[in-house]
């Protein structure tokens, strides 16, 4: 049923630290690798080596620039984005077939691919662009929170976390249960002021983002600076003539 559970027993999700993410895209690659070889239809590519390559990804890293209004130092933020496993997931309720569902036991939002008719409506309903229709398979793909890793007893204990979390060399992705206030993710989010994306869309995302710390500014300590007063601002002599001539052309 694509009705949402009133509440889930656990709330598994990710904390993504925008302060430490270095934008290496390792999580993008490991996510694609794991999810192509395991649960569900593979993530296809179209014309991967051609002029216009395109493909299905469950996790993508954007980069944004913040220019502070107060005129401080501009910052470049790398911004990984995958499904936020929303509590009020609009992608689930719009699904006509029941293929999309939110699990009662852990809150993971999944697609049952053999029920999906590929209408695309769930991707329309997701504000975050977390769902992509696979061109080759004609079914909807999305982050599974690596459901086939986190409970997988065939894997060594340390590998029972999502592929993206396991891979991240900067430790910018953390996995845990948000329903438990003492979990690593709840603590981290509380400490660092974890926030929701697009709270005005009322989706109640489970995943939280940690804000980047502001950059510090360097004090002017250059003792030679006064000796290097800027040279002529306005061109003089020949340069001035050239400047005017060019201007008049």
């Amino acid at each position: 049923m694509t009705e949402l559970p009133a509440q889930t027993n656990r709330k598994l999700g990710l904390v993504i630290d925008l302060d430490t993410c270095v934008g290496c895209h390792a999580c993008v690659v490991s996510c694609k690798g794991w999810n192509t070889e395991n649960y569900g239809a593979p993530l296809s590519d179209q014309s991967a080596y051609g002029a216009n390559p395109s493909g299905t990804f469950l996790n993508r890293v954007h980069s944004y620039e913040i220019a502070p209004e107060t005129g401080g130092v501009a910052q470049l933020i790398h911004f990984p984005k995958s499904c936020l496993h929303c509590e009020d997931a609009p992608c689930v309720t719009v699904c006509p077939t029941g293929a999309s569902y939110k699990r009662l036991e852990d809150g993971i939002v999944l697609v049952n691919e053999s029920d999906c008719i590929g209408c695309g409506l769930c991707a329309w309903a997701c504000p975050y662009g977390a769902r992509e229709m696979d061109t080759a398979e004609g079914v909807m793909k999305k982050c599974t929170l690596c459901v086939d890793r986190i409970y997988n007893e065939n894997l060594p204990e340390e590998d029972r976390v999502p592929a993206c979390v396991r891979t991240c060399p900067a430790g910018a992705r953390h996995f845990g249960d948000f329903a438990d206030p003492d979990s690593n993710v709840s603590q981290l989010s509380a400490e660092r002021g974890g926030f929701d994306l697009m709270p005005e869309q009322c989706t109640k995302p489970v995943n939280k983002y940690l804000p980047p710390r502001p950059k510090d500014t360097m004090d002017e300590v250059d003792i030679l600076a006064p000796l290097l007063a800027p040279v002529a601002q306005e061109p003089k002599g020949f340069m001035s003539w050239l400047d005017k001539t060019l201007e008049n052309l």
Partner: protein
Amino acid sequence: MHPAPSVIIFTSLSGIGFGLLFFLGLGLPAPTAWAAFVFFVIAYLLAVGGLLASTFHLGHPERFLKAFSQWRSSWLSREAWLSIAALITMAIYGAGLVFYGVAIAPLGWIGALLSIATIYATSMIYAQLKTVPRWNTPLTSLLFVVVALAGGALLSANINAAMMFLLATGVIQVAYWIGGDQALRKSGTTLGTATGLGKDGEVRAFEPPHTGTNYLLREFVHVVGRKHAAKLRIISLILMIGTPILALSLTFNHVTASIAVITHVAGVFVSRWLFFAQAEHVVGLYYGKR
């Protein structure tokens, strides 16, 4: 949003088809025998043809039966049920007229109601989406229903009703456009709220995740062609409303009626194209687009 031809054809034609079924259900007119047969064939070609066109954009059309299962939460599922219920009810009512020359009035009324409900369910598939602020308004449903009634009235030769619904379409269409142009701004969603970084300053998309395109950009970010929007709006108003009203107010015969119907349908196509092409999905913000 990407203006997929299959969806534009579906929403336009099936809307008009169910609009026609609405008037037939009310017994306006209540033809019998061959005349009834022709009316019902036209209505079913439009309604069913539109529904079939909509299956072209499915990844797995062969599984369409599953779409009937989630009527409790999904408008798409409700639309599937309502359309089948309307088509079956009206088929029985139509059979009465064609073969026995009797109009089973209550059945017709139920069919008319179901036809309108179908159009409403179609409109709610779009109007429910908070992610597309331009669509997320009751005006979307009002527009879909009134356009369908105008088309149905035209096809069923209810001239006075047609005039009334055409004028109403014009008013609602213009209100929808005016409101729509403010919708994204009023929704409060910006790149700042999308990234949560807006409180620290002005956020600018620096680099997209990939150099190439992807499903999200193809499906949700359609900016080409929007520059002609103003002209297309005027063209659509002239075709959808102006010409039919003019043609009908001159004289009523087969020629003017055909002109009215053909230009109206063409105008509805243009309006529907704009409905999709101009709709901004908030995911575009992540790509620095809208």
